[in-house]
């Protein structure tokens, strides 16, 4: 699949933003955070998720109809995501306002924010995980990876040892995801044979192109990434998003300025991870262009 920068930025930034909001919500529920910190970190989360959502808006080819995306929540994960994110962010704004004016907070609002932001990240991941046409996304690891990447990122600034646990879970899921992604269509029934109505093991190849130039389908869904570069990018991503923040947390536990530095590295790593998420994903339509 085409790794569009607008979508990658959207999943990275809003993922981190909602991850931070859910961690703030959890700490608010457990009374483990000061009122000032609720305001500061909720605002950071709000800014990141909003910038992410604006970035996804730029992916749309017909932006004037974007508001209609809130209408089909009964069947569409993208619609659920739009509603859930707007709803969650409104409560964040309300919570910030309440804490700012009253200088105290309601614990129960925290758990609502925690669950609602997790649900929002889940809906984002389901946009991809629902697609049978892309087997490397069409499994439980996609939502798991999105949720734990967001929680790990969100916890770096606010937690010490709990952050280590979340990072560790994220790291394991990431490696597992890559392992499954490598198998892509290997265990699926789809081949060029079934794509053309023959049996699975037919020996068929295209001898002429259906069109003389590239088209939307090829640009959007038949993206090929060089295997040797993909492996290198996996190393870069894993080091920046996992190994580096993990080791710095162990060396400097509870040092806030170090954790800001770690967070930057972590997000760069997640950016590479999401680039691979798209670039390495093989779509069923590519069989017609074998």
């Amino acid at each position, binding site marked *: *699949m085409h790794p569009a920068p607008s979508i990658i930025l959207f999943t990275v930034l809003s993922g981190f933003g909602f991850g931070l909001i859910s961690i703030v919500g959890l700490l608010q529920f457990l009374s483990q955070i000061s009122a000032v910190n609720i305001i500061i970190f909720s605002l950071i989360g709000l800014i990141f998720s909003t910038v992410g959502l604006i970035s996804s808006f730029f*992916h*749309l*080819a*017909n*932006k*004037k*109809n*974007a508001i*209609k*995306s*809130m*209408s*089909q929540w*009964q*069947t*569409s*994960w*993208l*619609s659920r995501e*739009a509603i859930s994110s707007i709803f969650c962010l409104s409560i964040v704004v309300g919570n910030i306002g309440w804490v700012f004016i009253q200088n105290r907070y309601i614990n129960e609002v925290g758990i609502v924010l925690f669950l609602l932001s997790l649900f929002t990240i889940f809906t984002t991941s389901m*946009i991809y995980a*629902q*697609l*049978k*046409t*892309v087997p490397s996304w069409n499994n439980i690891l996609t939502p798991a990876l999105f949720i734990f990447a967001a929680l790990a990122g969100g916890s770096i600034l606010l937690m010490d040892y709990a952050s280590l646990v979340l990072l560790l879970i994220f790291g394991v899921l990431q490696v597992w995801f890559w392992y499954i992604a490598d198998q892509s269509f290997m265990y*699926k*029934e*789809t081949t*060029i044979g*079934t*794509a*053309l*109505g*023959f049996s699975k093991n*037919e*020996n*068929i*190849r*295209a*001898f*002429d*192109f*259906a*069109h*003389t*130039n*590239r*088209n*939307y*389908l090829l640009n*959007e*869904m038949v993206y090929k990434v060089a295997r040797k570069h993909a492996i290198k990018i996996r190393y870069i991503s894993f080091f920046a998003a996992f190994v580096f923040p993990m080791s710095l947390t162990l060396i400097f536990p509870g040092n806030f300025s170090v954790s800001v530095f770690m967070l930057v590295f972590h997000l760069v790593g997640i950016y590479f991870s999401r680039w691979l998420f798209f670039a390495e994903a093989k*779509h*069923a*339509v590519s069989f*017609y262009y074998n």
Partner: protein
Amino acid sequence: MTKLPKCEDKKLGLLIDLDTCVGCHGCVVSCKEWNSSGSEKQLSDINSHQKDPVGTFLNRVHSYERENSCTNETETFYFPRSCLHCEDAPCVTVCPTGASYKREEDGIVLVNEDDCMGCGLCAWACPYGARELDLVSGVMKKCTLCIDRIYSEELPPEDRVPVCVKSCPTGARAFGDFNDPNSDVSKKVKERGGIDLMPEMQTKPVNKYLLPRIKSKDSVGSVGSVGEEETDATGLLGWVDRALSKF
């Protein structure tokens, strides 16, 4: 609404015969022509007369070669690819704006361009590459089964079929109701074994394909032996043949 209807009444679709198709791209051209003229909703082209032209099409014809395991010969065939108007259309349920929908009365899958926001998710959900985003208007385009022809009251009755069916010079394309067991398409599907594309994707396509007939060893053998020893030429050629045979 992006909820899928039952479509118990009619299931309109196409039957495409890969044994007959000669890959002339006539259906591609006539489809583009019909869907780009006479209305504001065009299928756009960019750089159409310059380097790197790209354009939106609702129908594409691929060319493949397949190894015949019986004769060890390679056979070519042509494969027209367009929307299959699936019963379980994943492109409809993923749509966030409600622009994608499946008609209850005949099962045709359509896009309401006034609602489409051009996110492209429906094209991702389709395993067949049936949907293309129009890069000029920014909305998703797909086969409408020529809904403006099949229900037209102005066109003469014989023209009330999709334009790809009407224009096909070999009769490789047929249009009809797959829900009616007595329709021509249903009978042909039964007789020759109509095939679903990628059944494992569980989309339940309405459109069916008829595969190329498998050529046997005998038919290939008879082609190989033409014009070797004997000739049954008559007239001037016959005289030349007889004259030359004397030496």
